[in-house]
């Protein structure tokens, strides 16, 4: 009996509806997500390994993948720095307008990406509110990789703020007091006691912002300029290949991007596992 229970796939329960709920969940998940994604990988597999590598390491594809990744990386690093400052200010300080500011952080989650794209382009175009200030300084933002980075900062910011905020909120003030009592300066307390505890959350937020930014399309294409080899992001190249009916090539670039995303997700999981081991949470 005990052996049979150990082998059973589900623990017995008085609640009904397990079969229906799980059956529907698995069917829906397979039809909407798993089978279509498998189709993508299968399609790129029709090229064979050599053909796949040929597409992915072609100069134009490589330039697009590199641009997507590097701009996303820069944006995620800036978001990590400013996201921590914003989370810190929102949790630690009291000032008028704080709750409004806090609510506003979620704007990039709610604002459609195409709207963000045209708004940012209007702002940073040479005749825009910000662009007209930067133009005399010789800084061109719109239609350059710098513009792509700005758009990616916009969409990635909430990820860092919202992952760091709850950890900072629950931070034990007694640790800070202990550190101060033992003679640490405030700077030492912040950088040697607090930041290491926040590090897993910061890294998680950073990785989530990075993963989102690598695949971002809507907010970027308006401001990017979309010049092959210069300001053409990987998702745009997929669309171009698709319009040429290069299904297998599009699938290959898509598979390469999926692999990048999964590597980033794996990083998140490793960080969280390490953090549980280190801080026992």
């Amino acid at each position, binding site marked *: 009996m005990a052996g049979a229970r150990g082998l059973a796939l589900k623990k017995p329960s008085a609640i009904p509806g397990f079969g229906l709920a799980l059956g529907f969940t698995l069917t829906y998940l397979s039809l909407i997500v798993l089978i279509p994604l498998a189709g993508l990988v299968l399609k790129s597999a029709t090229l064979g390994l050599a053909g796949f590598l040929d597409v992915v390491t072609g100069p134009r594809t490589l330039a697009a993948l590199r641009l997507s990744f590097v701009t996303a990386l820069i944006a995620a690093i800036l978001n990590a720095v400013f996201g921590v400052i914003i989370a810190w200010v929102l949790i630690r300080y009291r000032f*008028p307008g704080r709750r409004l500011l806090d609510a506003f952080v979620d704007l990039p989650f709610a604002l459609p990406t195409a709207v963000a794209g045209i708004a940012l382009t209007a702002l940073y175009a040479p005749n825009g509110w910000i662009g007209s200030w930067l133009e005399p300084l010789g800084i061109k933002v719109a239609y350059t990789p710098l513009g792509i980075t700005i758009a990616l900062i916009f969409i990635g910011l909430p990820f860092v703020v*919202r992952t760091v905020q709850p950890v900072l909120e629950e931070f034990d003030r007694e640790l800070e007091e202990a550190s101060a009592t033992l003679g640490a300066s405030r700077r030492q307390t912040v950088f040697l006691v607090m930041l290491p505890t926040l590090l897993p959350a910061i890294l998680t937020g950073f990785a989530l912002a990075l993963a989102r930014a690598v695949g971002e399309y*809507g907010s970027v294409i308006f401001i990017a300029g979309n010049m092959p080899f210069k300001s053409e992001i990987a998702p745009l190249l*997929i669309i171009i290949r698709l319009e040429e009916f290069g299904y297998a090539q599009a699938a290959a670039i898509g598979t390469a991007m999926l692999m990048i995303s999964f590597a980033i997700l794996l990083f998140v999981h490793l960080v969280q596992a390490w953090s549980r081991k280190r801080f026992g949470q």
Partner: protein
Amino acid sequence: MTDAAIAPLLLSTPRPKAVTTEQPLVRYALIGVAIIFLVVFLFLPLASVFVEALRAGLGTYFASITEPDAVSAITLTLLIAAIAVPANVIFGLAASWAIAKFDFSGKSLLNSLIDLPFSVSPVISGLIYVLLFGAQGYFGPYLKSENIQIIFALPGMVLATIFVTFPFVARELVPLMQEQGTQDEEAALSLGASGWKTFFKVTLPNIRWALLYGVVLCNARAMGEFGAVSVVSGHIRGRTNTMPLHVEILYNEYNFAAAFAVASLLALLALITLVIKITLEWRYVDQIAASRRH
């Protein structure tokens, strides 16, 4: 907001002992940096949408959002959301019932698979359906012989929207229902209620605010999705153009006033979404388990 305006208020509020906070100068500097960053990167883009939309006057504004192509884009956007959101609500309820109320092997794998669409680029979310149902796709020849159109038509756009909004409802419900446990349901069942009655009378009221929270976020993304829908739409004016796609077409035709007018409707939707979201987070903080997870 200047530091001078903040200073007296900061001093008058009770604050923790000096050892657990920074020097006033550092504090003001950090608050300043945070405000400037949020104003430049978030507030200015939002404000510019409304300013650009109204630049050509109210007449042009209303003409732009009431012309037939705009109206058909708005209708199509509403229609797609009206199909995609309920589909994901039913899925979210089923998935959270299975995951939260039962113990079975493979549960954590299932939980992470639900979040999968969040880590997929929107363009890939559209691409996968083109590979399946497009003219050169796996089912292309069959669909053509049966005269069924999925890509460049409503079904494809609905599928792509369902994909990108897939996790929204489930990820709000699963953690909350796991927290709530099964005692309430067991009590109802032992008192003789049927399974469905237990679900509608006990479980659903317990999760209603989290469900609404998930629906609001799901709906915002469904109405605003651009990349995935763009790949499968075909951009046929008046037929397969949603609001975000209509914005793109107008913008690329240098019809900026009209593009921003339609965009301002989407920005308004985003603001309404934020207000509902914040209200739910403030009023029902205990009943929204995942309010801090995104």
